[in-house]
């Protein structure tokens, strides 16, 4: 795994987080929360574009053509595989996972790689409001199951204590390794992470997750533009086919 692999993981996760946020833009508990879901979705989709744009300057773009046909090649966490059915899932993702991605971005911005230092800095300003939103809703109390799952996936995503994230930290490319990232996340959220046993042998270092699976077919089709074709006028469909 390289720094490019890590950046691609952040990008794919932010893309999926943005899409899942956006799905709640008319389903949140209040009009303000609807608007916040839409705005945060747009932010994270924009952040993913910036992150994808960093892959070329980093020197090695790990995106292979099979990403177009196999959703399991996308590097999103299992938490984003299916649309959320409960507001608690939204809040746990907003508070724990969004903040975990922000902490990793902080680690990139404070690291030694110039392109990441410059291009990712603005994200931290926007993420401040995602954090305030997530932490406030978290404090109001949510179901325990999505919270536990989000913590587990965040800790898994930071990587094993002796893995590549730790190596990148050792090289100075990242300002924080897995232990520091977890500590920073706890500090930000003003709470301790639950005790979780991670089977690192089953962990996929590219997708940074311990379980197989992939995003749902509808979302994957939408990402590839296939859903749009369903609504194209017949002449356009014929032209596209020829």
């Amino acid at each position, binding site marked *: 795994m390289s720094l490019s692999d890590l950046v691609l993981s952040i990008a794919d996760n932010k893309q999926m987080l943005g899409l899942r946020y956006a799905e709640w833009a008319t389903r949140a508990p*209040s009009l*303000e*929360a609807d*608007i*916040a879901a*839409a*705005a*945060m979705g747009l932010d994270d989709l924009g952040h993913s574009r910036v992150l994808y744009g960093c892959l070329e300057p980093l020197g090695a773009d790990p995106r292979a053509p099979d990403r177009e046909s196999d959703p399991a090649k996308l590097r999103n966490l299992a938490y984003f595989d299916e649309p959320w059915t409960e507001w608690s899932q939204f809040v746990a993702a907003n508070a724990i996972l969004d903040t975990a991605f922000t902490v990793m971005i902080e680690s990139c911005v404070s690291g030694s790689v110039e392109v990441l230092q410059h291009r990712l800095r603005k994200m931290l300003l926007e993420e401040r*409001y*995602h954090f*305030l*939103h997530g*932490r*406030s*809703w978290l*404090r*109001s109390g949510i179901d325990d199951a999505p919270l536990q799952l989000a913590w587990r996936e965040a800790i898994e995503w930071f990587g094993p204590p002796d893995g590549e994230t730790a190596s990148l930290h050792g090289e100075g490319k990242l300002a924080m390794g897995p232990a520091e990232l977890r500590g920073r996340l706890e500090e930000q959220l003003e709470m301790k992470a639950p005790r979780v046993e991670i089977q690192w042998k089953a962990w996929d270092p590219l997708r940074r997750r311990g379980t197989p699976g992939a995003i749902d077919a509808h979302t994957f089709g939408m990402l590839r533009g296939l859903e749009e074709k369903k609504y194209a006028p017949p002449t356009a469909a014929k032209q596209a086919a020829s």
Partner: protein
Amino acid sequence: MTGYKRVSGDAVEYEVFARKARVDPLHLVGSVVAPDDDLAMAYARATYDEERWCEMAIVRKDNVISLWQPGEP
């Protein structure tokens, strides 16, 4: 409806102020309803960020001291 308030439960109303340039005064751009300051900041930014404001601030509506209002003598 006279006396209608958007506030319910623990949520309170906040007024949102912003300006586009340093030479402009802050002016009222709208309001949000939220149960605490953190969420009110997040909502204000999400709702009113379509303009390029150089400053945005919120204040709890019940902290505004009214001298008089429309319809009062």
